[in-house]
């Protein structure tokens, strides 16, 4: 009896050490993540800024006024911009990445120098986004070689500036995101494809399936988990798009606010007046939208999956 009690006591002692060992993580996580997160949500209900950056105003509790002001303004337009620019980069990116991933993993093609190609397509991601933006700004700027060539060819008028046009600027931003992230996505998809059992493809081939049939009926369905992962991480990254459009448009999101992303707006609120109230409200909305969008994508793709699994079972 006494022996049992002692054992139990010892158990408690051991578990205490476990808690102590994991405590540092929770303390640091609490101080640097939970408290700032709570403060962000808390201050989003306050009028709290520094007039001209130097004279404090507030904090005064104002309920949902920050949210209503935000939603009455161009918030949806800015959200739309963000998704459009993300989409313009993502659609070509996923198509090219899939194609490259399939080619690179196809043993029948016997491609030589795979390591070289993989490194080359990954390279743009190693360049700092700001440096990359500066290069594109010079290339496509009013004094740059592209506009000069277009002018010499008689396609554009004098004083033409790509960055004065809504879709021109968006296209440059989309193209940059495409170039920067294609390598990364290709590597991820390749890992996914290589995880598929090659005997399945061989079996299909023996049964007389064509290349495209193998791709759509075998590779794609089995690649779905990785595909969803790529889609969601890319979408969340896209929602937080900042560096490329900010540097390309000198932080203004010009022309006509059409290249303004949510993160740029948030930065503008903080830059001149340290507006903690409004930037808190933007962050909370961004969090909700990001969560909802991820859930939507996840649900719609997984649901189909469950249905097809059911069919297989039947």
């Amino acid at each position, binding site marked *: 009896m006494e022996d049992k009690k002692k054992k139990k006591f010892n158990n408690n002692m051991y578990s205490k050490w476990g808690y102590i060992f994991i405590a540092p993580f929770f303390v640091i996580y609490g101080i640097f993540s939970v408290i700032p997160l709570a403060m962000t949500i808390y201050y989003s209900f306050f009028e709290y800024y520094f007039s001209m950056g*130097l004279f404090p105003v507030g904090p005064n509790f104002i309920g949902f006024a920050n949210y209503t002001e935000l939603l009455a303004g161009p918030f949806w337009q800015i959200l739309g911009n963000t998704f459009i620019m993300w989409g313009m980069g993502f659609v070509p990116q996923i198509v090219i990445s899939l194609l490259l991933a399939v080619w690179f993993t196809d043993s029948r093609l016997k491609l030589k120098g795979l390591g070289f190609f993989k490194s080359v397509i990954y390279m743009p991601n190693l360049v700092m986004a700001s440096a990359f933006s500066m290069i594109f700004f010079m290339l496509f700027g009013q*004094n740059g070689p592209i506009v000069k060539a277009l002018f010499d060819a008689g396609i554009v008028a004098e*004083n033409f500036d790509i960055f*004065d046009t809504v879709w021109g600027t968006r296209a440059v931003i989309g193209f940059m995101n495409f170039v920067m992230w294609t390598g990364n996505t290709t590597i991820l998809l390749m890992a996914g494809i290589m995880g598929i059992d090659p005997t399945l493809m061989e079996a299909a081939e023996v049964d007389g399936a064509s290349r495209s049939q193998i791709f759509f009926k075998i590779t794609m369905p089995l690649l779905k988990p990785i595909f969803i992962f790529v889609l969601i991480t890319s979408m969340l990254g896209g929602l937080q798009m900042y560096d490329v459009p900010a540097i390309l448009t000198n932080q203004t999101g*010009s022309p006509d606010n059409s290249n303004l992303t949510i993160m740029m707006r948030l930065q503008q609120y903080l830059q001149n007046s340290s507006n903690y109230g409004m930037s808190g409200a933007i962050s909370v909305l961004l969090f909700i939208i990001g969560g909802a969008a991820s859930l939507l994508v996840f649900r719609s793709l997984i649901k189909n999956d469950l249905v097809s699994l059911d069919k297989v079972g039947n």
Partner: protein
Amino acid sequence: MKKLLVSMLLVVVGLVLIACTESYETDGGEVLVIRAWNTEFQDRFRAYYPEYKETKTDGTDLLKDGTVVKWIITPNENNAYQNALDQDLLNQSSAAQNDRIDIFLIEADYALKYVNSQYSLDIKADLGITDAQLSNQYKYTQEIVTSSDGKLKGTSWQATPGLFAYRADIAREVLGTDDPVEVQKAIANWDKFDETAEDMKAAGYNMLAGYDDAYRVFSNNMSKPWVNANNEIEVDQNITRWIEQTKEYTTKGYNKGASLWDSVWQSEQGPSGKTFGFFYSTWGINFTLLGNSLANPDQPAEVGNGLYGEWRVAKGPQSWYWGGTWIVGAKYSDNRTLVKDVMLKLTTDKAIMKKITVDTQDYTNHKAAMLELANDPEFGSAFLGGQNHIKLFVESANAISLDAISPYDQGITETLQAAMKDYFVGTVTLDKAWENFYTNLKVKHPELKEKTS
């Protein structure tokens, strides 16, 4: 959680209380900390401050009495200078003595923000500079830095009247003369200015480089400030005129589609440029235009190098000023005597002021010294083909008015120019441009409102 918050709050309150009651040294500091956004004042300081001894390899300066001068230079772009300065000023009272800012520089566009704050020293009451010592400065340079309760918070070594700088070679070709008096007749008012612009276009030149070139000339002559007592934006008629003129110039091709300070704007001032002239003030002519006009910046600046010697100045359609830098003593400075001495030597000393102008062509803030140079037949600028530009500056400086200045001018100017550019190039309608202006301005300054009439 609640306990934690309460204790954190207590610590903060405690620190604030300590800061409030703390007394601080006002003299005898070993390090003079100066904050600026470019090297203009640094160059002046090193060249003309009599106590300056040498620059050390780490970029700090040594004064003759052993004081170290530490420079913190943050570029102006995107408000970076003010953001960094504000952060340090807010923490100034708790900073280590040698890290405290002693001097910071400000510009006219946001001068009132710092002048009306508690972070700037009263140069008369706190530093002991007398009215007699300041008597030769231009009145307007003092009005800009006078707080709402009448305290003088800064002093400048320059006055910055603006002129119209034009290319002599283009003037000879299109107007038949490069004589500043004759050219002035062709640009004496905005109607004449528009007519000349048409002639320039016909001859294959642009009148102005871009959208914002004439902005300051219009905005300096506004009849009321941008922001009224209720924090409402009031759009002056002059701004409307600037928008109409710039739209017309853009549509008719009288300008080159540049924005202020961008690469096209700068290259238009060089040998490959096709632009007749630029509105520039004192510092711009000798600091910016001269640099941009050279074909080879590594070669000495002399006739034959690019457009050196081919620029002239004329008064232009209206009197105006642009920029200027003020020296402000920071609260909690531990070097008040030294700050006072720097101000006196570099902004009121007649011999030094005159020497700066003779050496650099900059226009200094000393009426008597400038008048001497204006009337000196020997004095002239080689860059301006021997023209005595000081004479024109003297006339212009006396006409500067400051009725329409507000602490929001920089934010409003930047936001307006960006919003209107979309209208000028035809991306949006005028109404949409105004709408964008108000939305984007409220992001910068939440306290401002659109005027509801």
